[in-house]
């Protein structure tokens, strides 16, 4: 019976609510993608620093489905006390509502901070016959039905990048959505998709087992000095995915600001910075006060992307 009582205490402790200064209990951090992907890894690393600086844990919870839309359409159903936050991604938040099937609107999501960015990259497995971008391009033009391109989610950064590549290179490859970057790995390494349209982070996480053929950065990536940028290859393409965090609409202004400044603080930690850069993330700080301007600027860019994808006329 004692065990049962101890067990009950354990369970009950996860549902009790306490009062006091924010945060005085763990924060539930919902990630809309499969564990092991960029959003998840980023959140877990943030959690370590957050605990160190503010004394509370992040409880990272993966809620995958519909390319992130499942979690985002529920983002406003949680209590607005700052203890449930949902990570967000651009351009997903713009593209998915434009397509029209998902159950949220871009304006429904209250972004309070964007903290990092990962550049688009083309990645193939180590055994792949495509040694260079030119090999891949040749195959993309010649193969009947086109190449199979694996990427994270539908109407996502990877999806947009694939359509962008199709348009720029004059090819027709098929985009195959997965539940997240981590979910692509087995199919990429097993050769079931010809390539992944992903981020630098994937190439770093699977170094030795994969090859990065092109990257959408201004200059070559320091960890991949031999991989050309799209600019060098004649395609004007510097882009990637932005990641940030949102709170439910009912969350008061002071908690929104407080959380935003806390994420800035986390980004300032030198050890954390080094780790993130090593993993292929580029740290940024779009704080809560800069959010309206940032979203307006991004919105314009993504409207163009959506036109190219045929989501809007």
């Amino acid at each position: 019976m004692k065990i049962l009582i101890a067990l009950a205490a354990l369970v009950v402790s996860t549902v009790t609510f306490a009062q006091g200064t924010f945060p005085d209990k763990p924060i539930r951090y919902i990630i809309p993608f499969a564990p092991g992907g960029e959003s998840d890894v980023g959140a877990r690393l943030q959690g370590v620093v957050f605990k160190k600086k503010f004394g509370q844990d992040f409880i990272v919870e993966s809620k995958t489905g519909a390319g992130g839309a499942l979690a985002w359409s529920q983002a406003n159903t949680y209590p607005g006390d700052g203890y449930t936050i949902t990570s967000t991604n651009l351009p997903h938040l713009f593209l998915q509502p434009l397509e029209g099937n998902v159950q949220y609107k871009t304006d429904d999501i209250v972004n309070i901070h964007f903290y990092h960015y990962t550049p688009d990259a083309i990645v193939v497995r180590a055994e792949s016959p495509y040694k260079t971008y030119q090999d891949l391009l040749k195959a993309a033009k010649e193969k009947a039905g086109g190449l199979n391109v694996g990427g994270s989610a539908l109407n996502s950064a990877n999806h947009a990048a694939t359509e962008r590549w199709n348009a720029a290179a004059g090819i027709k490859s098929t985009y195959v959505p997965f539940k997240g970057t981590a979910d692509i790995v087995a199919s990429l390494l097993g050769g079931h998709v010809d390539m992944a349209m992903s981020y630098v982070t994937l190439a770093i996480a699977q170094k030795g087992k994969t090859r990065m053929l092109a990257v959408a950065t201004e200059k070559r990536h320091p960890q991949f000095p031999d991989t050309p940028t799209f600019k060098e290859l004649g395609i004007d393409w510097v882009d990637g995915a932005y990641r940030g965090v949102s709170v439910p609409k009912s969350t008061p202004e002071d908690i929104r600001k407080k959380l935003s400044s806390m994420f800035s603080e986390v980004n300032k930690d030198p050890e954390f910075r080094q780790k993130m850069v090593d993993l292929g993330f580029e740290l940024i700080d779009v704080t809560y006060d800069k959010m309206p301007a940032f979203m307006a600027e991004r919105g314009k860019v993504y409207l163009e992307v959506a036109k190219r994808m045929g989501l809007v006329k």
Partner: protein
Amino acid sequence: MEQLLSNLALGFGVALTLNNLMYCLIGCLLGTLVGVLPGIGPIATIAMLLPATFTIGDPTASLIMLAGIYYGAQYGGSTTAILVNLPGESSSVVTALDGYQMARQGRAGAALATAAIASFFAGCVATFLLAAAAPPLAQIAFKFGPWEYFSLMVLGLIAAVVLAHGSVIKAVGMILLGLLLGLIGTDVNSGLARFSFGIPELTDGISFVSIAMGVFGFAEIVRNLEQGEAREVFTNKVTKLWPTRQDFRDAWPAVLRGTSLGSLLGILPGGGAVLGSFSAYTLEKKIAKDSSKFGKGDIRGVAAPEAANNAAAQTSFIPLLTLGIPPNPVMALMVGAMIIQGIQPGPQVMAERPQLFWGMIASMWIGNLMLVILNLPLIGIWIKLLKVPYRFLYPAILVFCCIGVYSLSNAPFDVVMTAAFGLIGYLFIKLECEPAPLLLGFVLGPMMEEHLRRAMLLGRGDATQFFTRPLSATLLFISLVLLIIIMLPAIRKKREEAFVE
């Protein structure tokens, strides 16, 4: 071989840390507890503890604990089966046949010791098998594209029909019902809500925990209430624990056979501990020169099924850890536990998280050792537990279940849903429909859909690849053969008889 040893060394290094030893012990204790208690099994317990793993934080420790509950329950179940003639756990149903008779003849000690030793031996063998077989299998796993995954899951569902008790039609019906329930929620590709009837809570689908706890936990408790409290507990007669030399001679070959059969059946999709113990008992009866003693206290009838259920409980981790596919509902919960902890189940787990992978395997061996210790000298404590009146026990279990469900997402809706599934589960029991295939269909359905759609996309709408890719074709062919075999009238009749027995 050298690789295997260094891997195991790494594993033991992880498993022998004080923290992990503690969680292993907690898991084994809880497992034995729920195994001993009739009415509540490892599915409900693991489901109940999923939210608590949040607070543990460390994925290795959480998985070690949850695994301990599963194989611990196999040990604990036998105690109740032998002493009370009530299977504490569905996999110990057959142990009750001969174990209880042994207890009536004053040989409860020998029966308990045989069960524990058989389980320990089988657990050691299965742990070693898991360690040896997992790495090569994980390599093969990369050959599995969406076609193969889909076909393997078809095989899994067909196997679940083959293995279900009683009517084939009912089992097929339960699987289809499970697949249909799995459709509720948000479409994985487009984000459209399906069958949610405008209820916001349903856009996320029905919670797996609600179904599992309702159909297995709640329904079982309601059914147990029907039977009243007619318990005859052989508490005072457990004196001589050690089996005689003749017992050993009789039991040993049965243990070996049970271990091999159980290990094999555990790996099969749809298999697991229950199937292992049933098949082992049937096998023993068939090959025994004199089968007249079975059912009247034959030690082989205790040794073989106990070895088999423990071996199967452990080898069923193989498909989970190599392919990321759960072969039975308990493993499906382990998938949930891994995802909560930020691990995408699949072949890459071994390469990317060797500490977790080998630590968990090593902990299983340590856990088995702990269980022998828990079960033999501490038997008196477990017996006391059996004397707690049900009128205190059952309400307590129900309350804990409700708290567990509620805390998953702090939603009262989930508790209501669990209660509803409890009623449905009770109806299933009355209609003699087994709920396990339903749960498997529910878990595998969304995965099958995902792989089917991906396969069709990769093949540009060409479905013939399911039959032209050798691995996929083989899996589908086996499914077809299985299906034909169980549909044959002669076999169907015999099968139904076997399960009645």
